[in-house]
């Protein structure tokens, strides 16, 4: 391999726009700076080019992520995520209240811890604060709720070695992070009025689905769907339909935004989808969810599986952002 070709290989690590702008010029400088008999890149040049490529990637990504449309997407996420988490957390407290109202004196009894009710209230408060533009207060509350969810997930792993319900933890962390980012417009201004109504309807439907299925329409479609239903498990058929409509309304809210905002929102939601797939479906034959059970408890996660849990959401997000920007390049 000639020296020039070796340098071109190294320059392939740079972002495409940077290569288009500077590649030939950099090759000229590198060859001018090379010794007369030099055949291979010097180690310090290799390190310098690789660190330059990394810095350039970080700078380009930071510049792109600070554009107004990304800020709008972050503003929208800071309302969408708390509402979705409210809907998820409120299902059992709402069912409990519906059972009490229907004359069952115990409701769900001891199976509904106080923390579950508090989490539902906390995420609803975060959503309301975010919609009203009180982002700093919302961010503080969301951080506390996200910290609680991390503790909950750690508790589930400590007790059952389970990572089944990690998606709310990832979404909670993203909600807290999104609220900490300064935005030029409020979430309500980005999402606009009729979408806000659709979003509220979606959250209400998802939150009340178990109560409607168990208390309001108890005789309808009573057979249970025992398989996983996207975000929840073991739901009745009517509940699955109601949840499906709620999910569809959430999706419609995102998909009905402008193309640039929609692409960014979908990219922001990619880590949640990735962790959901990873913890529920697994990848091909990779025995991720099918860990060998011993007495009903699966093996502890190995190092690769831990790394996958951390890296896959981050890398899929990076790929989504890179794909989006490549697609939007003139």
């Amino acid at each position: 391999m000639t020296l020039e070709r070796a340098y071109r290989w190294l320059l392939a690590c740079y972002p495409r726009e940077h290569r288009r702008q500077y590649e030939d010029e950099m090759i000229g400088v590198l060859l001018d700076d090379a010794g007369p008999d030099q055949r291979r890149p010097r180690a310090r040049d290799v390190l310098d080019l690789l660190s330059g490529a990394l810095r350039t990637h970080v700078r380009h990504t930071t510049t792109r992520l600070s554009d107004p449309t990304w800020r709008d997407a972050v503003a929208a996420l800071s309302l969408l995520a708390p509402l979705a988490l409210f809907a998820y957390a409120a299902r059992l407290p709402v069912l409990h209240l519906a059972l009490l109202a229907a004359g069952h004196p115990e409701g769900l009894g001891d199976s509904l811890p106080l923390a579950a009710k508090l989490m539902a209230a906390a995420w609803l408060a975060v959503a309301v604060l975010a919609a009203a533009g009180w982002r700093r207060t919302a961010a503080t509350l969301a951080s506390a709720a996200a910290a609680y969810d991390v503790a909950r997930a750690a508790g589930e792993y400590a007790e059952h070695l389970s990572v089944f319900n990690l998606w709310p933890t990832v979404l909670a962390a993203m909600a807290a992070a999104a609220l900490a980012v300064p935005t030029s417009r409020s979430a309500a201004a980005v999402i606009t009025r009729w979408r806000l109504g659709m979003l509220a309807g979606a959250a209400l439907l998802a939150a009340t689905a178990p109560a409607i299925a168990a208390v309001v329409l108890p005789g309808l479609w009573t057979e249970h769907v025992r398989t996983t239903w996207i975000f929840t498990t073991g739901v009745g058929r009517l509940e699955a339909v109601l949840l499906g409509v709620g999910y569809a309304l959430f999706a419609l809210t995102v998909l009905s935004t402008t193309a640039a905002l929609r692409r960014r929102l979908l990219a922001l939601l990619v880590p949640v989808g990735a962790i959901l797939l990873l913890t529920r479906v697994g990848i091909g034959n990779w025995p991720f969810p099918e860990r060998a059970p011993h007495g009903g408890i699966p093996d502890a996660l190995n190092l690769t599986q831990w790394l996958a849990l951390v890296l896959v959401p981050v890398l899929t997000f990076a790929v989504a952002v890179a794909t989006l920007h490549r697609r939007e390049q003139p």
Partner: protein
Amino acid sequence: MPNTPMQESTYLILVALVEAPRHGYAILEEVRRISAGRVALRAGTLYAALDRLRTEGLVEMEREELVQSRLRRYYRLTASGARRLAEETARLRSNADAASVRLRRAGLLTEGGAA
């Protein structure tokens, strides 16, 4: 908002462009000369800095030419770049003066150098 302090390599690249527009390799050589060989910039660092400086409007391309089938682009300092360099130089001088005064007062610096 006050400007953040410049990295030494960025400062030296701007200094290298004060007297005349220069192409990439000439900037590397000029920076070595200015720093008496202490700072040896390499292409990766130089072009990461040039790209940032162009985006910030402190440096601009003047012309390009082909020399022995190699592309050479000449860069020059903009008015904004010259102003920023002057501000940074004043800041460094102020810090250096303050350090010299205190060292001299403490008897740790004579006129010829360190005591």
